[in-house]
């Protein structure tokens, strides 16, 4: 009996994958392998069948389709209306450059053997034979920058923690992926959790930390289940514990659950939360690299940053550095989301344009209407108009126009989008999620929403827009962290690229008829 794969990924489960897997088992008597997602969300649940030529894809499959599919020869990989041929030949996948996601969807996420058979553990094995300084140097050479949004050079952080003298150091993985339009962290945690564990262990060896925590958001129940099981397996197989793979070095790892606060994706807020407190932002300095969790040196990294580490160690920092564009080295898992025909995960070297991602990979909007804008980099990212879609995706190019690549999320909007409403939402979201510690963010967000409501109602538009611009400056310059400091980014992008949406330069319609 050929192997059958049905993803356990949230995007597949949300479309009925569990029922599909049950139906296949009921009919064939074979339990399908629950793999990660290949990242083609519009085809989920994507059922794959192993054939001598390779894996053949069927999707989107519902439980009701299974009987017919099996009758028509799905188990032999035969043609069908839902068949997409060999999975690897699907252009969306074929045109990617997968390093971090190389195994995602291919392997059984919870099989250490499968992981090792597909290139896993090469990085840690190299790291075990290296000095701590040499490990940090390799990360420095790679040019890796934090993938969570801030894009801070990872090597500098590693060296700082490595150089700090303390009786205890920590590795903390920021898995509080709250940005709308992003799901790369979730996908890799569900589809290749051992990669994250390996990355954290290497980080531990590199900076001299023996204890790690994964701070996971509570909105990710599948990732929670998969990670917990993967950590168990990793202990069982000796990747975690007092003697990591016979190296004589210890690394212990624990999963810690958040409780529904977006701000806890900010690293100091996350550390407060991990200490069991309100997730209020800390002033920096001191840097978490010197005084982090429990006041000890702590390396805090996003999931994808840590997942890049095994590849960097296995293939060398230079290999990684030579991919990408300028100071944006390596690959980035971009996530195409929102109103898009072919949404999903596209891992490419930096430098691909926004248009290529939205139109070539994404196939335009799901609604079939023209694209109006794409918000890049989450709720604190800019709305980019179609006219700028030739922009290459790299940190510097986006930085120049006051935007950011962030965590690589791209949310597509069609021409029915109300851009003024989106600008107001940016303030509303900030008001809802602000930790309340600094005034520009706590009060600014509320005032911004109120004034934007007046603009939308057509009340004294030009004066109120001036007020908003003044407020944005205060938030940008005066906020303690990126929450208040970058809420202005989406708002400003609307004011700049979609001035007609806020009625700029038009006369005060609320006064009309009264005269």
């Amino acid at each position, binding site marked *: 009996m050929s192997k059958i794969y049905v993803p356990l990924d949230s995007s597949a489960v949300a479309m009925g994958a569990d029922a599909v897997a049950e139906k296949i088992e009921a009919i064939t008597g074979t339990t399908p392998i629950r793999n990660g997602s290949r990242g083609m969300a519009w085809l989920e649940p994507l059922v794959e069948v192993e054939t001598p030529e390779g894996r053949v894809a069927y999707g989107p499959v519902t439980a009701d389709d299974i009987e017919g599919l099996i009758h028509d020869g799905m188990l032999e990989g035969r043609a069908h209306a839902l068949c997409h041929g060999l999975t690897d030949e699907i252009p969306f996948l074929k045109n990617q450059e997968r390093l971090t996601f190389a195994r995602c969807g291919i392997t059984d996420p919870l099989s250490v053997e499968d992981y090792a058979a597909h290139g896993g553990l090469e990085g840690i094995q190299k790291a075990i034979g290296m000095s701590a300084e040499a490990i940090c140097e390799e990360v420095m050479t790679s040019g890796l920058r934090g993938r969570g949004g801030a894009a801070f050079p990872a090597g500098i952080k590693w060296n700082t923690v490595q150089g700090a003298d303390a009786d205890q150091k920590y590795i903390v993985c920021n898995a509080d992926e709250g*940005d709308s339009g992003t*799901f790369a962290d979730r996908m890799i945690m569900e589809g290749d959790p051992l990669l994250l564990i390996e990355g954290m262990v290497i980080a531990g060896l590199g900076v001299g930390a023996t204890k790690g925590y994964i701070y996971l958001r509570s909105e990710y129940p599948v990732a929670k289940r998969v990670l917990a099981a993967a950590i168990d397996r990793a202990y069982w197989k000796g990747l975690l514990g007092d003697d990591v793979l016979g190296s004589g070095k210890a690394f212990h790892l624990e999963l810690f*659950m958040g*409780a529904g606060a977006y701000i806890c994706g900010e690293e100091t807020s996350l550390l407060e939360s991990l200490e*069991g407190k309100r*997730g*209020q932002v800390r002033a920096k300095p001191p840097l978490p690299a010197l005084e982090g969790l429990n006041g000890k040196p702590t390396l805090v990294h996003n999931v994808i940053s840590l997942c890049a580490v095994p590849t960097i160690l296995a293939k060398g920092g230079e290999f990684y550095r030579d991919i990408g564009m300028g100071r944006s080295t390596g690959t980035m898992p971009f996530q195409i989301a*929102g109103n898009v025909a072919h949404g999903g995960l596209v891992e490419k070297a930096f430098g691909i344009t926004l248009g290529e991602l939205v139109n070539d990979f994404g196939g335009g909007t799901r609604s079939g209407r023209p694209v109006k804008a794409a918000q890049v980099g989450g709720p604190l990212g800019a709305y980019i108009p179609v006219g700028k879609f030739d922009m290459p995706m790299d940190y510097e190019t986006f930085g120049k126009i006051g935007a950011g690549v962030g965590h690589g999320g791209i949310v597509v909007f069609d021409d029915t989008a109300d851009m003024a409403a989106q600008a107001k939402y940016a303030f509303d979201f900030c008001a809802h999620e602000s930790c309340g510690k600094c005034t520009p963010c706590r009060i600014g967000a509320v005032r911004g929403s109120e004034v934007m409501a007046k603009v939308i109602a057509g009340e004294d538009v030009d004066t109120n827009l001036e007020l908003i611009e003044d407020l944005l400056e205060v938030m940008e310059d005066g906020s303690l962290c990126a929450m208040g400091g970058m809420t202005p980014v989406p708002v400003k992008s609307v004011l700049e690229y979609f001035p007609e949406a806020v009625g700029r330069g038009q006369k005060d319609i609320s006064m009309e008829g009264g005269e």
Partner: protein
Amino acid sequence: MAENLSQSQRVNHDLITAHVGEVGGLMRALNALQEHDGYIDAANVPKLAKAFNITKAEVKGVISFYDDFTRAPKGKHVIRICQAEACQAVGSRVLTAVALEKLGIGLGETTPDGRVTVEAVYCLGLCASGPAAMVDGELKGRVTAGLFDAFAEDEA
């Protein structure tokens, strides 16, 4: 009844003391209580304060900070509809309005008979399969208004 109550109190006591001394123990205890009871009973606040050697105000501060911790029981069914941008781009605002109209409640409210609570959630990571929702812990993608019919009908 008194016996049940004391048993539930005993469980809560265990959930609290199990996490004393752990990193982030208070968060762990609160998550455990919320999961077990469906809310954080005010009676647990002084117990938490005592167990973790902090003030009651500090405990309340932590409870009020996080959206997941609620101070009253929710409805029998909990529907969480994503309100974030990727779902907005595929009509979550209208979808939410329709759901609330069918159930006759506002966002964050519970039907008078205590059957259904509708809450906002900010991203379930299903951004390419929106609008997304979570119904009694189960993830749902490409949600249409039909999803809410079953909950609305029983209402009548």
